[in-house]
């Protein structure tokens, strides 16, 4: 039983980083595919399409920071806390990156047709980013209560 708890503790420690990175991979890929298509159809503004497609990479950075905040010796006393915070924060980052990627793809698709709504079309992606920031900040806050 102790081994399982220890394994979960380690998973919680590395979870934000790994799950955040998985989400960023999928999100950047979806937005990147959309950007690649838009390059075919447009004459200008290529840089911003590629720029948007990198938006879901921030979740990986948040994951790294949370991982460092949680980084401590894993013991049976703190393993459950690490698992709870790390895995849940990782899942939140992963899903936010995937759905942000989809929002970015839609933003690219509509701003290709009407470039003047480029800024407004990014609002959904920015809102999704906001939720990722919530998950990140409160993971940092709560991590202070996990015994060292």
């Amino acid at each position: 039983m102790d081994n399982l708890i220890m394994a979960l503790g380690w998973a919680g420690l590395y979870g934000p980083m790994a799950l955040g990175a998985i989400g960023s991979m999928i999100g950047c890929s979806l937005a990147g595919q959309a950007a690649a298509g838009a390059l075919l159809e447009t004459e200008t503004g290529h840089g911003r399409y590629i720029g948007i497609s990198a938006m879901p990479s921030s979740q990986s950075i948040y994951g790294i920071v949370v991982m460092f905040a949680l980084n401590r010796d894993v013991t049976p006393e703190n393993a459950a806390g690490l698992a709870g915070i790390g895995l849940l924060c990782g899942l939140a980052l992963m899903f936010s990156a995937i759905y942000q990627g989809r929002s970015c793809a839609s933003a690219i698709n509509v701003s290709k047709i009407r470039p003047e709504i480029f800024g407004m079309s990014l609002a959904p992606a920015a809102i999704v980013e906001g939720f990722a920031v919530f998950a990140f900040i409160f993971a940092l806050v709560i991590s202070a209560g996990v015994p060292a």
Partner: protein
Amino acid sequence: MADYYTLVTSLPWLPEQMEKCTQLPLSRIALNRRLTLLSAIDQRQLEVAENLYHPALNDIQPDRERVQLWSKQLQELSSLTLQEIIIQRLEVQTVIAALRYRQRSNTSAEHFVGFGRWTEWIRHHWKEPCFALEKQIAPLEHWCELFNHQLTGELQHQLDRYAWQSLLATERNHHFTIETVISFVLRWGIAERRLKSDSDTALTDFQHLSDTLINSSGIQQQLNRLFEDMNR
């Protein structure tokens, strides 16, 4: 089912209102080149959908066989949404075909063959002005009016607009999927047909079609057989 992020964003924009589409944004060759991003299965689905939605003019199969073929081809479409789009189109065509068939002399409801859930209903309501389908198809009353006044050009325009709006709604309800791609290509097909329409070409095509039909009629075939028998 695969998502087509690259393909959907690489497709050009077609206006929301069909009338505003005054020129095609890219050639069919360029469109086909982009459509190579579809998987082999989805390319087949697109082919079937296009054949059903925009049938070739030289198709002179008897109605019963054609309806059977349509039913068979529809089974090849795995997407229920795509099936619904095509069925709606074929059912509208059935209603218009019924109007045309009824106008001819020496025709009866029993001999009418159509596609879809309304065929039997049409036979039962053969004498009604719009086959009592006004509630099921909102613009039908207007279409019947145009048909009765022999405004066939305007009727075709209204039918195209109806199809255009229906396809546009499907495109908006599906993002980056095969339904989005196929709805776009079908809308592109309507635009292409409208922009290439030419009265002289239409007359030539009609003449060619009627000649083919006359030559392939049962009487002609029987006469040919008789001549062949006499020559032996």
